[in-house]
Structure formats: C-alpha cells, structure tokens
C-alpha cells in the first residue's frame, strides 16, 4: 500500500523536481525562429485530452475529471498519451510488484479537442506500455488527414543536447501552443536506456524539429530515491525515453483495434 512515508517522500521529491525544472540555464540568445518553425511544423499535432479517472476505494467509486496533453501520431487519429493518465498503480509507485492486484486508478471517457475545433471528440483506449509509461488512444470517427508527428523520423538524443517540449494550454487560456526548452543532463542504462533531463513532460523535439523522445516523470524512481533532508537531487530528474523505443511501441499499437468494452 501507499503509506504516509512514501507520500511524504514523493511530495518532497516532486517539490525538488519542480525546483530543478526552474534553474535551466539558457544557451540560446534568441529562440524566436525555433519557436516559429516548431509550432508551424508540429503545433497542430499537440492536443488536449479530457478523461475521467476512477478509483474504487472502500467499495465506492471515486471519479475525478482530469486532462492531459496528447500527440497525434497518425493521420487517422492515433494519439500518444502518458500511461499515468490512463492507469495509475499506487502499489507499484510504493514499490509493489508489477502485475499484482493493488489500488489502480483507471481512466475512461476520453475526449479530445483538436486544434481549431470546439468539439470534444470521443476517443477509445488502444493499448498501453506500462514499462515505457505510454498509452495510445484512437479518436472515434476521426477526421481524415490530421496533422501528426512522424515518430519514425526521430533524432538521436545525447547528453548535453537542448530539446524542446511542445504543449498546448487549455481552452480557458486560449488553446495556444507553447514550448519549453530542456537539457539532457545525463544518460543511464540502469535499469534501461534512459536520458535524465530537466524540462517539461511531453514529446521532446530537437532544434530541427525531429522528435527525440518522450519526457515524463518516473514516479517509482522518485519514490525509490527516498531522499528528504539529505537533498540527494541526482535522481530528482525527469526521464526521456528515446524515440526509437517510442516509435517501435507506437507502430505496434497502430496495428491494434481499440480495447473492447467489458459489457
């Protein structure tokens, strides 16, 4: 179970993470051409997804409406989203074993708002990859020829590189694209090949607009770091999963039908 100490550790770690995210040093003197080109090339592929996350607690289902950022990865409406928006396993976060029956929050009722549209289109879950922390949705009755990011045309991340995460504000703030620069601060192969970065969760692009990988928070790694007042901040980073792994998993997901309802 997710005990109080774990919650405190996670909270402290997330706090430290937030602090580190704000100390990134600028290496470019003028970002304007990069911003313009990137928004023009990929801006329409960044969309907002609403969903309802439900958790069954003491026999009662608690439901919370939430939202996340999605990337359109095919012209026919396949979307890439973080797995934590689809399923959140509290026991795994607290060090439990994968696959065991623990307290799992599950999402449903996905709705997508495409750029320049006021409609919330229904979307269905296709599949997830909990090890990569990714999931895929497919827009129901999707419009054709959507703008999308071709993940097979990715770049190679390297420590020291600067990257840019593309995001979109919610409709209350105008649904406008924005980006956030980040830096690849290191690389590890334990337990898997991952780049340690600062920046913002989402799909990361290099300066030429090629996708580099998917940046996200690794909750179990933060939880395992367990540093409070020792301020061991080396593990309080975001992680970038290289684009080749994201692209391979996306190609598999693209072949699958949407998940069938249970009733």
């Amino acid at each position, binding site marked *: 179970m997710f005990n109080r100490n774990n919650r405190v550790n996670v909270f402290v770690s997330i706090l430290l993470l937030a602090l580190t995210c704000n100390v990134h040093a600028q290496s470019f003197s003028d970002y304007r051409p990069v911003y313009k080109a990137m928004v023009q090339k990929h801006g329409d592929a960044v969309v907002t997804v609403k969903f309802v996350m439900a958790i069954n607690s003491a026999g009662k289902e608690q439901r919370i409406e939430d939202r996340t950022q999605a990337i359109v990865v095919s012209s026919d409406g396949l979307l890439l989203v973080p797995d934590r928006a689809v399923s959140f396993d509290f026991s795994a976060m607290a060090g439990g074993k994968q696959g065991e029956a623990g307290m799992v929050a599950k999402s449903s009722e996905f709705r997508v708002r495409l750029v320049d549209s006021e409609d919330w289109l229904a979307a269905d879950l296709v599949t997830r*990859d909990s090890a990569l922390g990714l999931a895929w949705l497919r827009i129901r009755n999707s419009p054709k020829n959507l703008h999308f990011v071709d993940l097979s045309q990715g770049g190679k991340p390297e420590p020291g590189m600067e990257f840019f995460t593309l995001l979109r504000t919610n409709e209350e703030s105008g649904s406008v694209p924005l980006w956030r620069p980040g830096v690849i601060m290191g690389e590890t192969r334990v337990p898997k090949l991952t780049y340690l970065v600062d920046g913002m969760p989402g799909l990361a692009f290099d300066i030429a607009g090629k996708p580099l990988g998917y940046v996200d928070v690794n909750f179990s790694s933060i939880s395992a770091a367990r540093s409070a007042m020792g301020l061991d901040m080396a593990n309080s980073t975001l992680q970038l999963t290289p684009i080749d792994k994201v692209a391979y998993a996306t190609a598999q997901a693209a072949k699958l039908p949407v998940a069938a309802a*249970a009733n």
Partner: protein
Amino acid sequence: MPLSKSLRIFPFFLLFSLAFSTHLFAQTIERSSDAQRISKARDAVLPVVVSILTVRQDYQQGEPVLSVSSGSGTVISAQGHIATNAHVTQNGKSFRIVFFDGRELPAKLIGTDTASDLAVLQVISPAPEAFAFAKFADNLDDLTPGDTVLAMGAPWGLSNSMSAGVVNNPRRLLVSLFDDEADYEDRLGIDEPTGRYYAWIQHDAAIAPGNSGGPLVDLNGRIVGVNTRGMIVGGDLAFAIPGPDAGSVVQRLIANGEIRRVALGFRLRSLKGTRYTSGVLINAIERKSQADKAGLQAGDRIVSLNGEVVTALQPVDVPALQRRIAELPIGSQVVLKIERSDKVIEIKLKADAQPKARGDDLASSPFGISVTELTQPMGRRRQLDDDSGLLITGIRPGGAAAIARPKLEPGDIIRKIDGQAVSNVSQLSGIVVAANSEKYYLLDVERDDEKIVSLIKPESNDKVRIPLPELPQSWSGVEVQAISNSLAKDMKLGSSGYRITRLYPNSPLAKAGAKIGDLLTGLQGEKLKPANDSASEPFHQAVRDVIPETEIQFDALRNSQPISFKLSFLPSPISSAGLKTLNLSKLRAEIRELGFYDRVNGHLPISQTGVILDGVESGGPAGLAHLQRSDIVIRVGKSNVDNVEALRKALYTALATKSSALIPIIVIRGSENRVLYLDPYWLGN
C-alpha cells in the same frame, strides 16, 4: 468501547462506602433500591427496543450511492409500529428491524416528520402477530436534574445496549450563554430545520451513533425521551426529544402518515434582556409571507394569540409557542394582539399550510446530474424570485452535464428544458426516458442571479468498463534477489547476479528446470550485474528488452556449479488493470476476471476458475451479503461461475426462480471456501 456511566459510578460508590463505614448500611439499602428500580425499568422497556438497519440512498457526484446505517427504535403498538428518528429513516430505500431476541423482519415507512426529527416504521410480519410494546410518558412535570435515566439502543450498531446517567436539564435549548437566541433556528439545518418545536432533555447517559431513535427511560419505566443528538467530543452530553412531544407526533404519523402545520411567516424571540414581563417578540418577518402582507414588523410584541395571553420570558419558552402556532388549524383566521410603540394593535392573518421544506431527489444518468426539487422555503433561503425549478446537487465527472456548453455546476437551478418548464423530478424523468442521445437539449439555467442557457447532449445509461490492455512484454516467470559483486564476494558465491527467490508455476524458467536458489549470472552471453543489493528491476528490464518468444540462454550457478537454461520468454501475464471488469449494478459490486497473479498470490491452482470482487458498495446487495473486496466467487445459486458473464447469468437465473429463498454464494476467502447468502429482497425481488 467507552466505559458506561453506570460502571464508572458504582466503583466510586464502593470506595466511598469503605471509607465511611458508618454509612455503609444506609448506602447498601439505597444502592439495592436503585439497582432494583433500574432492573425493573430495563425489563419494562429493553425487550421492545429494536435496532433498525436502513439501506439509504444518497447522492454523490451526480449518482445515487447506497450505504447501510443503523439506528434504534421502540415498538409502540401491538401492530408493530416503531418510533424512531426521522434521520434514521432519511433517504431509506429499505428497512430491517432486529428485535431484542435477535429476530429480524423487514419494515415499511409509515410517516416521517423532519421538523421534529421523528418517524414511524411498521414491521412487516410473515404472520399476524401482536407485538409487545411500550408507551411514551404523558407528562414530564416531575422530571428534574439529577434523576437517573437509562439510554437504550444500539450504539455503533451494538444491539441491546443500555447505559445510565442523570438528567442534566429537562428543558434545554441548544443556545449557550454566548449565543444569540435569534440565531438558533439558523443552525438547525439549511433545508430541514429540526428541533423548532420543543426543548430537549439534556442528560449524560452515554450514547453514540446508532442510539438515535432509541428510548430514554426513567426509573419508573416510562419513556421520557427519544435520544436524538449527542456530543462525542467534550463529554457525555446527550439530547433527547421529550417523550410527550414524541408521543403526540408519532400518534399523528400513524393516523395520517404526515404532520401538517401552519406557517405565519415570522420568527419569535423571548423577552430575555428586555423590560417586558409578558408577551413574545417578533424577531424576523419573511418577505411576502402572510405576516408581511398583514403588516407585522420585526420588533412587534405579541401579547395575545386568538384571545389567549402568550408569554416567553426565556429562550427555552419559545419552542412551545412555535409549536402552538404551527398547530393552529390550516386555513383558519388568526387574531394577534401586538404592541408597537406603546400602542396595542389587532392584526388578522390567514394560517397558511407550511410548505414542504425540501423537495424530492433524483439522479439522471443520461444528463449526469442529481437534482432536488426546489420548494418555497428553499427558494426563500436562496433569495430566488421564482421557487419552481430543479436545483442541481451533484455533477457526474465526465458526464453529459460536465461537458455541456457551458458545463453545469452544483447549485445551478434548471428552470426549463427545451422551453418546457420543469419543477418536479417526474418531469425530468419523463424527459430522460424520451431522451435521444443524438439530440441536444437547451437548458434555461439560473446561476448566481444570472439566467444562462446551456446545450447538453444526454448519454447512454451503460457504465462502460474497458480493460486496460498492454503491449506484450517478455516474462521469465521468476522473482529475484540482487546479489552485487561485493555481496557475492562476502557470501563466497563465485559471481554476482540475480538469485531466484520465487518461481511462478508453468513459467519459462520453471519449465527450463530452474530452481529457487539458482543464481542467474548472464543473459545471452552478457553478464547480469546488479547495481546494488536491493534493485531487482534491472533483471526484469533486461528480460523485457528481449522480444517475446525469442530463444535465449541464461547462464547460472547452482551450488557454485555452472548451469544454463535455454528457453523462450512468454508474454507477461495480464496485470489486474488489463482484465475484464464488470460493474454489476444489480449487486452494486465491481467484478473482475480472475488473473494469473490472483491465483498465484492466493495460493490457488492455475486452473482455478471464478471471478474476483474488485469493489463492494457497503449498502448494496453484495455488501449486505457480507461479500468483500478480493473474495473469489466460484458459485452462485446452483451455477458455477468461471467468468464475469457467467456470474451475471447465474445471478439472473437464481432471481428468475421467483423464490424468496436465500441465494447461496460460495466464495474463496483466504484459505477457506465460505458460503454467504444473498436475499432476493435486497435486489428488489
């Protein structure tokens, strides 16, 4: 459990008597006498005290939610009428009565009066029966502070409980020395003010949640009150509705099913703090009420009502006057003599029937909202110009109302749907039944004095539960312990690696001949090197990096001797999130396919069939049958259950027999197979 008052009092008496032996004889007689009176009072009433189990339906996030609550009551007629609190029966869908001897019978609601917080149930007996019963005291003139009283009921659901204490104050208004009595009614309840018509009996016999509706009994065996409120923090302060008031209300409920009162549209305050010695002051006038129309003003002093002098010197005198006014004949003319600016004026006004305090509730699944009918008092308290409409009390996250344009919010008042005025829940039900999920509906909504319109598209009633599938990942079928280089050296193991600590049945490594204790040192010729003594995840990641069903080789050490295993990884078993789930509304439970990890962690054979309960709503039929989360259901009625559809079918088959017999459910719980029983009555059969 807290020590009861009587237990705390008696040891004190004992010590006291030892210290003062000259008084021993007299005290023994007194104690003996008290004990006999307590026994007599207990025997007169406790056998007719019952526990009440209420399955109640409340609304949460725009959806109905069932739960079970318990209270207490007293049998008050040979026909099986039971007096209890209105808050015990509030929102009740069904009631069960547990008698002193443990017998359990269903009951129906005869009437409820929220203004006095009293209700009457009647037992549904399978055969004609004359029930033993008790009566309420006719008057409490002789009840004084210090009198011993007994509280009987089911605190925390523990039936046949009794505690003793003394009366602290037989006429208590819940206004402390620091409060303004004029604020008293504001604290009684927003839409259902209770306790307006009587002063309470304050006592210190221990009561707890579950005692509500149970009797307070004096040593003459009279029911002097109905325990209704208590203060858990700050000492044993309990409050009971006076027996004569309760007796009068419940008799009228039995006769008419309801209590109808009048409302004149003003509130009273006592003469406390004024120079006056007779009359009662008008504290507030409701706008547009009969009092307002008749010209009454706040500050007027009523000196007589229909020719009879009225006086409330202290706040505690006010409730009886409120009651006297409320019980005037509906529609009659009321003559008040009031004094204003030293002049006496006669004012006549009509006694209007008191409007319903709170309207009916409904949850509309297609619209994703729960609503309450607005009533005149609700509209007045919210200062609305129009008190017809439906007040939104909850929004279902992700439901139609949550994504309406603009989205609806709790507190909004729906005035019209597609131009048609709606003022009661049956009108909404009619629209919901006919709702077309392809059509948009235009709602006229009032929000914070603004009249807005919102477009909403209803949704289907089905609760879709989608399993969360995963891309296949390679799986070796073991749990491992990391053995770092330094640890291997200290343990003289010959190599670092991952030591097998658990082998899952039929797993690739188990089939290849691996055993617990084997040290896995390499995979596909690459050395397995743990980073520390605790992290086993790199091993699993190394496995996941191999495409499933590829032939691979593990190098290992067994008793320091090299050994190797050739195998193909299998796709990982499906985690609980990826298994098929069904939210069975009939049972109010969430049911899931049995998975690999359910079986191995439950020490069950891999061939074990059944379904697992992922969630049980406490007040639903599954909860009432004492089914629990993680129970594995293997049989319902006469049918075996091996998947979620089979459970649904088995349940409906058992219900289709139209028998009232209990439906047995066999579950695996821990190391036992256990039988539980489902009453078709709970499922509406």
